[in-house]
């Protein structure tokens, strides 16, 4: 290992490569700088502690946490089945499961509405049971879970494939039941992938806008999450919108910073 690293970094990159790289970095960072420069610092505390702002922040954190937990509960088994079993049509199932990654969130919102909404596929059944999902906090969680789930599945499935089955095989010959193998060998081995998937799913949930506003609407305290609040405020009160955006950026940076403690997680 050490003999290899002794030679690392000796073969340089072509110089022209640094130009597009710098342009790309500036393209990503400049808008953030521009936004921060528009923050009216004296009013910041008042703006971010207004009732609407606190409601939105609290709702966003709560729903994103619940939807991330749901992603874990549903996504880890999905990843395990996709990575460790073979069944006819598996490729198609994988593509369909990952579909929310590529379809526009507003389309996801419509799809959810036509499934769980009052006049949707399951809406009537749910109605009879006395459950109304659309335009509730539950709808926010469902919209976030719908769009965030593929991020978790893709990370964990990749980690499972990379880890391979050799350790699991050894564990089985040592007498461990499939349940014990999964708990004590499989999950710890994919730990970094699991953590990165969780962080990605949380970040995606926190930023969710299109599916949420379509399926859940924008009622303060119930369905108006931070991104929706920012969107609503941006015309009437640009200062408040910028202040809330700053909050969202700080939360996002904190999440990535937490995950960044383990290098190579993201």
């Amino acid at each position, binding site marked *: 290992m050490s003999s290899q690293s002794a030679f690392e970094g000796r073969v340089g990159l072509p110089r022209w490569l640094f130009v597009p790289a710098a342009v790309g970095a500036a393209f990503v960072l400049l808008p953030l700088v521009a936004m921060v420069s528009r923050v009216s610092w004296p009013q910041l505390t008042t703006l971010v502690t207004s009732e609407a702002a606190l409601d939105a922040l609290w709702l966003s954190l709560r729903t994103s946490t619940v939807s991330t937990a749901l992603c874990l509960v549903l996504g880890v088994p999905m990843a395990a089945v996709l990575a460790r079993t073979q069944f006819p049509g598996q490729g198609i199932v994988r593509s369909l499961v990952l579909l929310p990654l590529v379809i526009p969130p507003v389309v996801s919102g419509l799809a959810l509405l036509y499934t769980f909404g009052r006049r949707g596929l399951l809406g009537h059944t749910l109605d009879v049971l006395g459950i109304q999902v659309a335009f509730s906090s539950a709808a926010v969680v469902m919209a976030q879970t719908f769009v965030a789930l593929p991020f978790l599945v893709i990370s964990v499935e990749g980690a499972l494939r990379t880890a391979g089955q*050799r*350790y699991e*095989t*050894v*564990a*089985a*010959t*040592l*007498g*461990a*039941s*499939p349940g*014990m*193998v999964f708990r*004590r*060998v499989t999950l*710890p*081995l994919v*730990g970094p992938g699991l953590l990165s998937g969780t962080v990605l799913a949380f970040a995606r949930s926190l930023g969710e806008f299109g599916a949420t506003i379509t399926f859940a609407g924008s009622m303060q305290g119930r369905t108006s999450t931070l991104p929706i609040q920012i969107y609503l405020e941006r015309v009437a009160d640009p200062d408040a919108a910028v202040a809330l955006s700053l909050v969202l950026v700080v939360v996002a940076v904190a999440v990535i910073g937490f995950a960044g403690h383990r290098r190579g997680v993201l």
Partner: protein
Amino acid sequence: MSRLEFDAAVAPRSVEAQLTVADGETVALIGPNGAGKSTILGVVAGLVAPTSGTVRLGGRDLTTVPPHRRQTALLAQDPLLFPHMTALENVAFGPTARGVSRAAARSAARRWLHETGVGDLAEHKPHQLSGGQAQRVAVARALAAEPQLLLLDEPMAALDVAVTPALRQTLRTVLADQTAVIVTHDALDALLLADRVVVIDEGRVVETGPTADVLARPRSPFAARIAGLNFVTGQWDGDAVTTPSFVLAGKPPDPSLRVGAPAVAVFSPGAVRVDQSPASASTNTITATITDVEPLGDRVRLRTLAGTVPVVAEIRPTQAANLDLTLGSQVVCSVDETEVTIYDLPS
């Protein structure tokens, strides 16, 4: 009792073998690469499904039993220690899986780590261990699972030659009363670790017997190669073994060997004399072409081909200096009759 009775086939891999391992016995499976040795271990461990046949262990039919209920621990070339656990936790894994309490599992793990000579490394993580140390921990882990049958798939093949002798001694101790099957390429492993040898070729058992017998009187080319002997098959004409290219006389064979029956002549490469041209018109001379020359400690190993029969000679460097050792050049190999053993070859 943990007697293994294996009689199964894996059609896609052209494996169809029958073998038994007595309670407490260690059997070495030897054979060329791709002969099906690892497939047989896989079937016993439940990792490869046989297309037909049965596997019985201690009277229990294992054929449809899942791997974790077979009590057949598998030790491979690669130690495959769980990277997120310490050495101690790795070894305690098997006992825990059996339902032993945490404290009892850990004390059993300590005992086995001590037994395999790595008791002081209990708290180390796998990445802090050398290859030899890791394999010792893997041996301890396999034994701590208290398997009825231990399967070893070339356990020393990936190790530095400097550490294999010590590990071989450790295995010799721990395998003494353990029913085990070991896949190996090494005659020394077979001699020191196994009571019996089973030679596998192209998915079939081609030879079996006590280790010393198989190595002294191999009946398959592969066993001869493992034993480091030249192996020439031909026909017994009453005085010598005849092949299309040459005739070999030797020590008188068992009188039961019939004239015209297939027979084999074996001799050590060290007993072969090599000259540039026939020294005398003596018997047992073989004209051959040099195909390879390699150094071998204080000897030089010449691989030659007499017609289609390979003959290996190991000569002193001083002798080699007097020969033209260009690949493709012709030499005359001769071997004394008293150095050649002749016996029957079952067809």
